[in-house]
């Protein structure tokens, strides 16, 4: 199953990024994964993605900066935040900044799948 939606995955834990890339690729998305956030930001400068899935707590550049960068580049991009340090205030902060969804780690693969599917639906409705 192929589709045209491009997804950028950012997680400084290589294994997580790899798993997310594998799961989303299986669903037909074109996925690029980065474990160095600065490289992800550089990539975001080069091209727009439909969906960005980013961890929040990372060294040097955190997920909120990735979110802001992606939103500045294109407000059409849907950013899904994932974190192992989920708390109500952090969720509200991320949503205030324009995140599409907020998911706590560990999560079930279906949680991410359905979040990405909702993001795709929202993009389709906006077109």
């Amino acid at each position, binding site marked *: 199953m192929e589709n045209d939606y491009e997804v950028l995955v950012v997680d400084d834990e290589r294994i997580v990024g790899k798993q997310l890339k594998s799961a989303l690729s299986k669903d037909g998305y074109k996925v690029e994964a980065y474990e160095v956030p600065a490289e992800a930001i550089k990539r975001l400068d080069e091209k727009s993605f439909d969906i960005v899935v980013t961890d929040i707590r990372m060294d040097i550049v955190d997920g909120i900066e990735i979110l802001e960068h992606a939103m500045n580049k294109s407000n059409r991009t849907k950013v899904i935040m994932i974190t192992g340090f*989920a*708390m*109500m205030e952090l*969720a*509200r*902060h991320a*949503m*205030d900044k*324009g*995140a599409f*969804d*907020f*998911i*706590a780690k*560990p*999560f*079930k693969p279906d*949680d991410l799948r*359905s*979040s990405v599917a909702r993001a795709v639906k929202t993009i389709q409705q906006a077109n």
Partner: protein
Amino acid sequence: MSVITISRAPYSMGKIIAEGVSGQLGYKCVGNEIFAMASKEFGIPETQLHRAIAHAPSFWGMLFVRRLKHISYLQAALVKFFLNDNIVYYGPAGHLLIQGVSHILKVCIQANIDDRVHLKAKTEDISKKEALRKLLKEDLDRKKWSRFIYKIEDSEKSLYDLVIDTGRTSIEDVVKNISSEALLNRYWRTTYSVNCLKNIALAYSVKASLLDVDRDVNVRASIGNVFIHTRALQREREKRIAVVKKATQGIEGIENLEVIITEDIFAKYVETYR
């Protein structure tokens, strides 16, 4: 995209405000209907559920465990109901216990006592003096009830996202303020906030089923994993685990169950000196 809970003391125009917000946002408005929902879900007569929260706890009141059980049923029904979208809730039964869910906007309405007395006297056709006496009693009962259930004061401002004084703001403006706050991105549903609610709903359902076994049982749920903390004598450990597993059998949403037994020091002490 959110759930709005409105807490208020009696005769503070809470229902009118809730209906106003519901009308403005097109959300469903729910108050005491929660009793019928809990009654239907758990097969407990509505009158008993009303009694469990109608009066402050007292020595001669409803039996302690039964009261706790009925309150747990109400809370479980309430949390399950909150899994629906677009709700304004102004009824009783423990919405303050639902902390940490980012898409629930918690509002507290504060009205001055003179306005409340005036409204109560007019509504019940009694003197202002009588209205004041009754209101003070109701407020005291509410405080006792809150301490009994939540172990906190429901007037504590940090429990709420919005505290509005109706003495300083017109009802129309209160409705507008709540409605515009509810539309902020921060109160949108997220996968995390929905999972938090599902965890709380599952924990309450499990707790309600175990209060006959241990009235101090503590239950936590996390994406299908349920952790039950209960006290028992060491020699009754295996028996307790079996009882817990039997009592929770068939509760929807449990994927793994872990029973953590702490030695019941009080029972051990009693047994030693029997």
